């Protein structure tokens, strides 16, 4: 079963008096549990595609379905539960809330659903990634690798069915990047989560079940990889 489907996605931005077509008629389907990489150079539309697939943005044309539900025209408050319970995000710039501690950042999505076990789940995840000594630290007190580990835990605390990761190792050195990727993939295996990852790294792309190549806003190739 396809956990995510997108049909004829087009996205046009107006900047000043110019119109820029960032995505042009992109369609794809993602089976449940798949590790999909969206690859492309800077400006190819990868981040835009990710933000539309995850419901952060609306396409100019086209439809997006998550678990068979059309999310294209949902209002912000209607899509919020989806983001909270079904989707998890990992960003290149981490995007931790600066005024919350590591523990509070990770607990946050669970607290939104009033999960009484929010704290326990957060602690368990942070311990899992080796952050048990940094629970009360603030983001600005962490290294890049630590921030991304915290962000990863935050993305997983509600056991989402899909994780969207936008260049999760882009701001990390190779050691930390490799460690984060291993964690991400390991946790994904453990929970059977569908992972849609955006990267321009060919090395990461080779680890995926399938890679989509984006160029100038269109899918320029698709290559399934051997399991």
């Amino acid at each position, binding site marked *: 079963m396809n956990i995510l489907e997108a049909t004829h996605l087009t996205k046009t931005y107006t900047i000043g008096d110019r119109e820029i077509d960032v995505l042009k008629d992109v369609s794809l389907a993602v089976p449940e549990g798949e590790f999909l990489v969206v690859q492309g150079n800077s400006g190819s539309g990868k981040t835009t595609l990710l933000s539309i697939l995850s419901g*952060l*943005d609306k396409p100019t044309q086209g439809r997006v379905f998550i678990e068979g539900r059309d999310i294209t025209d949902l209002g912000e408050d209607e899509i*919020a539960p989806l*983001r909270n319970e079904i989707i998890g995000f990992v960003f290149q710039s981490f995007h931790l*809330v600066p005024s*919350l501690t590591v523990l509070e950042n990770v607990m946050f*999505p669970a607290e939104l659903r009033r999960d009484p076990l929010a704290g326990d789940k957060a602690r368990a995840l942070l311990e899992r990634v080796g952050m048990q000594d940094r629970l009360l630290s603030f983001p600005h007190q962490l290294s890049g690798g630590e921030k991304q580990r915290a962000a990863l835990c935050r993305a997983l605390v509600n056991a989402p069915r899909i994780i969207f990761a936008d260049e999760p190792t882009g*701001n990390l050195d190779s050691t930390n990047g490799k460690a984060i990727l291993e964690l991400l993939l390991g946790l994904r295996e453990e929970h059977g989560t569908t992972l849609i990852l955006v990267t321009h790294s060919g090395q990461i792309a080779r680890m995926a079940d399938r890679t989509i190549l984006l160029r100038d806003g269109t899918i320029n190739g698709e290559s399934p990889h051997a399991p």
Partner: protein
Amino acid sequence: MLHKSFIRRQITRSGRQALVFVLCVTLSIVTIVALDGFGSSVNEAVLKDAKSLNGGDIIVHSHQPLSPGLSRALRSWEDQESLRSVRAYGFYSVVRVPGEDRSLLATLKVVEPGYPLYGSVELQSGRRFEDVLVQGKIVVERSLLDRLSVRMGDAIHVGSATLTISDVVTREPDRPVSLFSFGPRVFVSSQDLEALDLIRKGSRIQYDALLKVHDPDNLERIAQDLRDHALQGQERVETYRTARSRIKRFFDNFLFFLTLISIFTLLLAGIGIQSVLAAFLKEKERTVAIMKTLGATSRFVAVQFVTVLGVLGLLGTLAGLALGALLQAWLPGLFRGLIPSSVQPSLSWRMAIDGFILGILVVVLFTYLPLDDLKQLKPVAIFRSESARARRGWRAALTILAVMLAFLGLIVRRSLHDFEIGMWFVLGVAAFILAAALMAQAVLWALKRARIRSLTFRQALRGLFRPRNATRAIMITLTASLSIIFSITLVEKNIDASFVQSFPPDTPNVFFLDIQPAQLQEFKEALGRPAEYYPVVRGSISRIAGEDVDVEVERRSRGDNLAREFNLTYRDHLLGDESLVEGASLFRPDWEGLQVSVLDTVLDMRPVEVGDMIAFKIQGVPMEARVSSIRARRGELIQPFFYFVFQELALRDAPQTIFTALRVDSGEISALQNRMVKRFPNVSVIDVTQAVSTLTGVMVKLSGITRFFTVFSVLAGILIIISSVLATRHARIQEAVYFKILGARNGFVLKVFTLENVLLGLVSALLALGFSQTATWLISSRLFDIPFRPFLLSSLSMLMATVSLVTLVGLISSWSILRQKPAAFLREQTEE
């Protein structure tokens, strides 16, 4: 659901921006709270004891001796021992030092034994007033001794009598301030009234009967009975509950005006609140976007930030209350000379609760829009800020506008008792702020397109358009607030130049009042110089253009009203500064019956046309006249003028006095005054230059107080400058670092930032000067009818002061930015 850690840290970590927000909230309410408390204190100290202030339980006023009917009614109640009465006579007269050429216009009050019925007249000696004021003795105000160079025990001529100064009055119960007097007080015993020989037919005397009712339950019954016997329009019967003393009217009006200024400050501080909040929330956009990305609803986000702002708003409100209370304690000093020294600041729970509610209303009103903007923020803002906001539909925009207007209306309703005037004022201020905004926008548009060769100047100019620089908000706020301050200063200078420094050459500067008709010929001979003589007959209006005059309604109006007594006159020609605006001639030769020519000022009180009928009452005698023409005045302000002019036939035989107004060299005024008063003791002489000087002193005091309150609105602009610098701190540091990396010295960076602030201050001050010069020209030429002077040097001083202030504030706020090291900044940029 409240995320307590998040809320707590948003408050504690926001630091300076939060502090500026709190200060803006404080500023918005501090002056209103202070005035509220001060007004209560004045009422408490001065006006609460209405019986003392008005002189009795029931007060009968008239400018004529009491009519027989009223006198009989009064006597009847006295005979029944229902009340006790005391008569008092008030008028101006010139007092003279025997054998010397020293004289002075004084405010006389002749009182019967038993005065005052309530309160006490306090004397310097500490003795009892009733023991001191006996036949042959007078009690005077200190300034009379100083100005006539006399001492206690000296004798002075008062009218035709020679009386001895026996004590000095320090406080009167019904005259808490001597604001409205042209001369010092002189108390005279009623036993000397006849000897004074100053009360003649038609003389300008205030006849008061002050009554003390023995049984308070009878008060209204007695008052109504006396009203039934009083001559409508000539005799007024009031109780201490209904009477509005001049002092109370003055304070009510002045405090009303100052409250308007405070609302002006509130509106400008509100711009500050919005601007500061916009900058504050801009910094939180990424946080909000992250939270929404994680599934937080708009409502959840809104609840957190409403709580943050609620706490900050509460702090601001409490600070505003505290500072308002402190300011209130200081106000008696500011108003010294206008209020009695006995006024003590008072704090009350009512004032605190009122101020608290006001603070809440202000915070809700001015944070609504920025918070709504936050709600509209989409989570994609973490990637792109351009597509981050949902567009507001016109319905939503209208709803927001309606909500804001409703809250504004609540604030006006709470602060001002006259809601209609308050809302018109607010709309006027809004229009003015809009005009300032348009002018500021036009200037910025022009500046953006200016081609500048100098690198420093060019960078400084670019700085004005830095994203998140609240340049427009600063300019609007400073322009609006400075316009008021500049206008007050320039108008004051123009009035001072026209009347005090150089009295208009053709304007009369000496008035001789209360000349009796029988004295006229002798007076003319004694004066020995040509002059126009104006007969004055006192009368009132009962009906005009088919509509009765409702005395109570008229008295409530803020400006002039038809319920008062008018000075009527008669002549057959127009005065030199008059012209006809309606009607072919002053009077119509083809009309029968009595005619009256009306001054166009009357039309402001009631629309009147040629042919309309006006019913007058003169000394109780009704008289109807047809409007034959409408006149207008032009020329200098201080020329005698009359609202109603009759034909000679109509009023020639009515009880009247005559006055004249001349232009006399200032060096001759005193001698002329002495000579004429010696011969005609009943004639009052008013040296207008002295009077204008007295009035100017009061005006300077009042305008100084107004300027003080307006300064608070300038503070709003200052706070926005500080907030703007804080909001653009990162961008400024970035600029400074890039300049240095590329080889610029610290001096260059300092020059650029300084010039940016100089430009900001200069544009704001120039716009403010433009508005204020225009306003001053309008006020001078249209309202006061005096020549307009631009006072360029003063204008330049105000401009320089503004530029210096803005530059100083901007530089102080930017100082730490200037000291930022490039390496540290660049290192920070490689991290998140």
